């Protein structure tokens, strides 16, 4: 770019897009498309994040991997076309854009066409669709970049865990959009925490995603219930899972990371829809607080809130017997020692660098089980808050709650009911 940058903020991120080997490709299915030497990428879910992920994988590929954006799919035709237009003009995508008009798919079955046409799929729809799409992509033997979270209920998690097993057997590469796991500052901090060097033995973690209100999209003229819910997807349980699942999963995932990827044995959560009660907020709660218990006696305390005008904090405090580490993207404090991660690669790009590298080297990463467990931790906390019950991990995993529509079709949707602890009972 133009002009010098302040030296403390070293933005030379591209240097970390290191050259990677191109040996031993045979081990990963669809490493290359039959008869060509490129990886054909399809995007399922063409909103802002799907479009962003498509750009990220192109930037990650750079000169080292032959990647093309090959097909796009979205429930809404206009959205798929808009993404095609934007990506075709995106300078980081450039000549990697290879979407012909007949590979822009719309409707509820668009995902099938994209999976069929591609070697690697980016799953970036609202989370509710994720189990269906993961299941189909694994069945078809395709590599996956999946956004988090990977489900919104226990039923979805069971599907995803089954797919994770099948993907392992097939040797598929799956990377999840829990980008902190691919962010240099987090990785370095966590190495120092896990080794005991930074804060001694990890005793507990306190994790937060307290922010102001998130967006609400009003119903547009002509939208039926299904179209409106997809449009305003953040506030409907079957699509989003509520903000504890959709965004707080990041912080819960960091807590599990600090705990050696253990899963909690039980939890007690509370929360409610206290301030944001307009119908546009659907059944979203505006706050949750959950205490998670682990088998070894340790606990994780978690809070998340989306209410304007309140204290904000999006970070993790990992508490050790010698001090506390306070972590947030770009700002890492280890018991008073500030860790300055210089030249951090954009973690949203690094996810794809690691994914492509693992494919190229024939050592496929498979993060699906890990992100499914972090997602279930969030779901478990939510369901405890919704119902008022203490829940065990097994109860959460085996929950009969299945929020996904029996028939995916346009038209009316059931009445929205805001859960009430002590009254709501999903079991």
């Amino acid at each position: 770019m133009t002009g010098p940058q302040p030296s403390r903020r070293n933005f030379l991120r591209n240097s970390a897009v290191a050259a990677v080997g191109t040996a031993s490709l045979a081990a990963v299915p669809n490493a290359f498309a039959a008869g060509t030497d490129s990886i054909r990428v399809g995007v399922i879910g063409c909103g802002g994040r799907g479009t962003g992920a498509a750009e990220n994988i192109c930037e990650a590929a750079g000169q080292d991997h032959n990647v093309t954006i090959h097909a796009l799919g979205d429930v809404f035709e206009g959205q798929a076309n808009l993404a095609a237009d934007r990506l075709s003009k995106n300078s980081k995508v450039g000549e990697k854009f290879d979407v012909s008009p007949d590979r822009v798919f719309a409707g509820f079955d668009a995902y099938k066409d994209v999976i069929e046409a591609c070697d690697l799929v980016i799953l970036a729809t609202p989370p509710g669709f994720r189990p269906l799409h993961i299941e189909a992509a694994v069945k078809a033997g395709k590599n996956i970049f999946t956004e988090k979270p990977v489900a919104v209920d226990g039923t979805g998690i069971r599907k995803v865990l089954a797919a994770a097993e099948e993907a392992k057997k097939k040797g598929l590469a799956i990377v999840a959009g829990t980008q902190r796991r691919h962010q240099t500052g987090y990785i370095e901090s966590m190495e120092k925490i896990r080794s005991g060097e930074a804060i001694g033995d990890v005793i507990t973690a306190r994790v937060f995603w307290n922010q102001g209100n998130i967006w609400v999209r009003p119903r547009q003229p002509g939208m039926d219930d299904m179209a409106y819910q997809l449009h305003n997807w953040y506030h409907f349980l079957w699509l989003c899972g509520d903000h504890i699942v959709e965004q707080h999963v990041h912080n819960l995932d960091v807590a599990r990371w600090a705990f050696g990827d253990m899963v909690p044995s039980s939890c007690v959560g509370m929360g409610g829809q206290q301030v944001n009660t307009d119908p546009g907020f659907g059944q979203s709660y505006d706050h949750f607080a959950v205490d998670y218990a682990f088998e070894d006696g340790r606990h994780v305390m978690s809070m998340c809130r989306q209410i304007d005008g309140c204290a904000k904090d999006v970070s993790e405090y990992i508490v050790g017997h010698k001090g506390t580490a306070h972590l947030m993207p770009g700002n890492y404090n280890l018991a008073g020692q500030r860790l300055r991660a210089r030249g951090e690669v954009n973690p949203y790009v690094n996810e794809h660098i690691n994914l492509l590298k693992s494919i190229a080297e024939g050592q496929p990463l498979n993060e699906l089980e890990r992100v499914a467990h972090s997602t279930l931790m969030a779901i478990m906390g939510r369901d405890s808050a919704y119902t008022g019950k203490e829940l065990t991990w097994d109860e959460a995993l085996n929950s009969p709650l299945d929020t996904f529509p029996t028939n995916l079709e346009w038209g009316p949707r059931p009445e929205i009911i805001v859960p009430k602890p002590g009254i709501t009972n999903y079991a």
Partner: protein
Amino acid sequence: MIIPLSHGRTGFVAVACALLVLPASSSWGQDAQTPEEMKPYTETIPGTDISFEMVPIPGGTFMMGSPDDEADRSKHEGPQHPVTIAPFWMGKHEVTWDEYDEFAFSFDLRRKEREGVERDSQPEGEQQADAITRPTPPYADETFGLGREGQPVICITLHAAMEYCRWLSAKTGHTYRLPTEAEWEYAARAGTTTAYHFGDDPADLEEYDWFFENCEGPQPVGQLKPNPWGLYDMHGNVAEWVLDHYVEDLYSRRSQDTPTVRPVVVPDEFEYPYLARGGSWDFDAYDCRSASRHVSNPDWSVQDPQRPQSIWWHTDATFVGFRIVRAFEEQPELIDFKSPIIKGKGPKPDDAE
């Protein structure tokens, strides 16, 4: 070297007199008919008890940029060239979250709703302010854990800063905007010609400003020493948006002899590159000099994973904020100027200058 544009008493003499004879009055000095009558004043955002102070800056001519022999300078800070500036008022402090939240989180609109204010029967300015689009809600904590009360705004785009000014202007009836790059440097130097407004020795910086060596984040505004014209935090705390598009060889395109009068490269529809001036809590001392120029680019929004990215929030620019000015008499290209930046437009191509 300060050459007043007008004769008679300078603003500073007038300021001193005003302070001697009159207790601070909230609106006194706002409606000066001549540059000599410009006084410091305090503006209160209508409907709130939130106020900010404005300081008169006399017109004059100065040498913009750094001399070839200044330590740690960058090439684009030169060549030094004469620039003439017309009188204006400048914010004594960087704009704080307290002020910005009224706009960004629509505290004003919500207060009116609570109080049952009939929107259509309000004064025209209030109606105009109400109609200005507010920032989209940030996904996460827009302060990134670096604090809020009394502290300067961070992580906002140039577009957001310009729209705040438009909102504030409608509310107050006084036209506020961002300083031009030339106005900013002129005010920061305050008549000095050294690397910093206090001299050339970076060792003295800690007395005047917050920078990498003496803090871990932005600090409440106005705690350390001001510059000779009474402006606080010019070399540190947060870097400050100025209006101008960045043009690398701009200074060499200007006359080295005849003063360029009120120069500005007005923003267009592109999102980058623009300029922030002054130092910040996250910069080394040499990046905090009066002539230092910080150029915006897409890396200021790395953690925004959406495409197109937000036109309001720079998720990774925890070091950038802004300060406002009010021209005594507006320059022609800035009359009724409003942000032309378009979401998703990206950086200006190199050949499109």
